[in-house]
């Protein structure tokens, strides 16, 4: 299809305000939260209704044009990276909260609605939306759905997939289907909703999403404990969870990370080898009992300090320090490279030890901040892009960390997704048969593979590509290609 015809077709659907085709404007969409990969889309479209999304997808399907959906563009795996010669469907204008149904504990939203808006909308009724990725003040529900976002509180409350009850989906051929029970608990037939959530935008575009909201707990208690090193802190984690407690959150930061956070947001954390932030919530009597147990466990594991948040302000300060961790890395290093691997909780000690050994072998610093409760690591490899060869070394080290996690029975990613960034590692975790079986699902939803093609699954064409900072390919440097 001629470009002009495509533009006109899209304008017929969306009006001129809904189509972006100027090069400079398109460039601001060339990457999402991960800047290592960039592709300029052919067009960006901004539908305002589900019907417009459907018409846009139908046009793409009829013309065989690939498309990628994008929410707030905060993903960390390049899941919303545009596809060359494809259309980028930006859903940020579908941002209405369609229905709040307190009796059934449901909220129905459009995909561009920002995560935190849902909690804000129902706060007065004593409810909130439980999944709380660190990006919750900006990331969209549609994006959360695509990535099956986690968050610090998902240890107890589960992930996005546990809180999405229904969705209206525009399939890659432009048909619209409803999956999940919505307000009802179960729906007969295959669990298509469960398969859709976390499919990273490769199976279709959700245009209406039914979320479960959760009653605010009666009590919340938060403490911060300092330890000599991550091993001792890890011991405390095992002790707490082994005691039959499921904390709302249990987060660990190592000394390097504490240093960065202190520089950035000054939460007043103790200077220690490692700190834990533990949060318990639920019925008051239960929380109190468990809180005392938690304190005891921390002390038994030689915590040098146990600090209890006395009020909401102090609690907010603990979390501010934690949630700023990634962004704060800029204060102690020019560049960093983050991984998102998961290991079984009992392997944490061994894996952390190995990570520090690897860091020493490579002569590079690795900061650790992670969801200790569920073993989701975020090792941050610090480097300086201006020093020749450091970026490559950082990538290699990050890769070795990933392999270490897999060797210990873990997973490539706990919440950031595979996207563009980690697809090359997929064969390390899954066999060809596994991947082919997943492709069966893909083919059922998207037979022509026009919906976010090239993500999640390694393709021969893109094999051997490595993540890391953006570098020009020789072809690019020669001005022959923009992206490859």
């Amino acid at each position, binding site marked *: 299809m001629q*470009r*002009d015809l495509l533009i006109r077709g899209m304008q017929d659907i969306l009006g001129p305000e809904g189509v972006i085709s100027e090069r400079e404007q398109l460039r601001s969409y060339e990457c999402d939260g991960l800047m290592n990969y960039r592709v300029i889309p052919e067009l960006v479209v901004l539908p305002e209704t589900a019907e417009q999304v459907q018409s846009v997808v139908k046009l793409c399907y009829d013309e065989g044009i690939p498309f990628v959906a994008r929410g707030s563009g905060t993903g960390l795996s390049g899941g919303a990276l545009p*596809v060359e010669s494809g259309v980028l469907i930006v859903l940020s204008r579908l*941002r209405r909260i369609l229905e709040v149904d307190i009796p059934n504990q449901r909220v129905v939203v459009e995909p561009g609605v920002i995560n935190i808006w849902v909690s804000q909308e129902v706060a007065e009724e004593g409810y909130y939306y439980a999944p709380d990725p660190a990006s919750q003040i900006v990331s969209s529900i549609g994006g959360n759905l695509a990535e099956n976002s986690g968050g610090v509180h998902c240890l107890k409350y589960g992930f996005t997939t546990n809180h999405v009850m229904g969705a209206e989906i525009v399939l890659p051929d432009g048909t619209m289907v409803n999956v999940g029970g919505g307000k009802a608990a179960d729906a007969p037939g295959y669990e298509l909703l469960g398969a859709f959530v976390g499919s990273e935008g490769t199976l279709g575009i959700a245009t209406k999403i039914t979320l479960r909201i959760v009653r605010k707990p009666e009590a919340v208690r938060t403490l911060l404990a300092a330890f000599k090193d991550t091993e001792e802190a890890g011991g405390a984690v095992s002790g707490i969870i082994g005691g039959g407690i499921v904390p709302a959150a249990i987060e660990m930061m190592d000394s390097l990370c504490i240093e960065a956070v202190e520089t950035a947001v000054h939460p007043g954390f103790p200077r220690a080898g490692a700190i834990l932030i533990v949060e318990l919530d639920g019925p008051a009597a239960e929380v109190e009992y468990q809180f005392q147990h938690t304190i005891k466990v921390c002390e038994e594991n030689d915590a040098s300090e146990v600090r209890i948040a006395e009020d909401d302000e102090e609690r907010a300060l603990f979390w501010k320090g934690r949630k700023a961790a990634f962004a704060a890395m800029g204060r102690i290093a020019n560049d960093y490279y983050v991984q998102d691997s998961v290991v079984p909780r009992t392997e944490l000690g061994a894996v952390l030890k190995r990570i520090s050994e690897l860091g020493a072998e490579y002569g590079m610093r690795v900061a650790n901040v992670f969801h200790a409760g569920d073993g989701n690591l975020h090792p941050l490899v610090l480097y300086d892009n201006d020093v020749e060869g450091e970026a490559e070394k950082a990538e290699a080290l990050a890769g070795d960390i990933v392999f270490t996690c897999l060797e210990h029975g873990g997973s490539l990613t706990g919440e950031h997704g595979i996207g563009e960034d980690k697809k090359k590692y997929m064969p390390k975790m899954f066999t060809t048969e596994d991947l082919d079986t997943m492709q069966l699902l893909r*083919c059922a939803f998207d037979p022509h593979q026009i919906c976010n093609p090239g993500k999640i699954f390694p393709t021969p064409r893109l094999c051997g590509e490595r993540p890391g900072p953006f570098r020009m390919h020789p072809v690019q440097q020669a001005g022959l290609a923009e992206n490859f």
Partner: protein
Amino acid sequence: MDRNNDSPDPRQDGNPYDATDATERRGEATPTNQDAAAQSIGAGSPEDLPDDTFASRGAVKQTVGIGRKTESGSFVFPAFDDHHPPEKDLIDDCVHCGFCLPTCPTYVLFGEEMDSPRGRIYLMNKGLNEEPMNDQMVRHWDLCLGCMACVTACPSGVQYDKLIEATRGQVERRYERTPQDKAFREMIFQIFPYPNRLRLMAAPLKLYQRFGIGDALHKAGVMKLLPKRMRAMEALMPMLTEQQEVPEVTPAVGERRRRVGFIKGCVQRVFFSDVNAATVRVLAAEGCEVVAPKLQGCCGALSVHAGREQEFEGFARQLIDTFEGLELDNIIINAAGCGSTLKEYGYLLRDDPEYAQRASAFAEKVMDVTEFIQHLGPVAERSPLPVAAAYHDACHLAHAQGVRRQPRQTLKQIPGMEVREIKEAEICCGSAGIYNMVEPEPATELGDRKAKNVLNTGARMIVTSNPGCMLQIQASLKRMGHSMPMAHPMEVLDASIRGADVETLLAK
């Protein structure tokens, strides 16, 4: 496996739709070759798509054309020259996390990446060596209100304020605006920084509407752009009240605790002279000797926010000269927009060997009046004002200066006063310096949104620290058929210290 082959990857079979294959429209711009840069504009090289490229461009003008139809066709490559371009180091601080998006007023309105801080910084980066400065680029920078809510929201500490100011300086120097646009901007800068001219203009503006001059001009087909902006300007104009001149020196009540300078502002002086009078009374009551030089010029805030660097520097040097040598402990400002610029004098005049150090010394003394009162510790007795007031954060106070707690505290220290928070407090009201005059549509949308949130608080009055916000919110309320008493925190505090009745305050 075979079964997967029934779903070919479209990319492997070549691009399913032709002519626009990316390989054909490469043309990576080289910094030295302006022709190459020319080819990189738009989606394809002219050879590929001569007609539809331009057809589409015509249409796309409207994509983000909220309030702007100024297509000058001007472009320069690379976008920035060496004189204070947006600094690469500051741009690199942005990790593209997007946390700024929901607090950016234009992103809230349009939902477009280019109209978000992250997008604008991205474009600045591209402008450093990859893309030219042209209508598109400039439009997205122009649309920024400069409210700095993104600076507050940013976890990485990106100094967007410095970036956008540098960018605007470059735009003003390097980008050729349309004649109408230029004329209108020039007019603003010939009036607003000059209180006397401003005073003179306010009256004819009223006449302008009364006699339907705008309509006549419109019918005549001339000045197509101007009337809309003029109307916007007119809608914002408050009734001129009797001028209250501030004395050059006001002695402290009781023991003198500080000797402070007072900056009268431009808009403040003309339209809100009561606020200045109230501020001086409050400062005196709190034990300050207040020095307010009679002849003081504009601080240059409007100019610096619009990238008019030289004009700003002139204003700034003049103001420094005025206040130097007065032996002041502090220099007090009650207008948020002026305050944020005054505090930046040191940075802004860093290249001026004669003034750099003096500017820093000046800036160090500058405090917002509520900040100062809380710093000093209140001594004057407050009498009760039993009223619920919605406090509106002026962006240049809350975001640019980080002063949020002090004005609230100042109000809460008044017995009986209830301070209510406005939903979406961090989102700008659309006033933003000259923004509501040059970009009336988005500004109006933001103003109405703010007014709605203000009304929803159920408060009886609204309190804010910036004259621009007052004008803007008042205009929106009026358009919506509402009115609400409005006051500067100093007016409220003054009423309390003087023991005025709350109804008198509300009837103002």
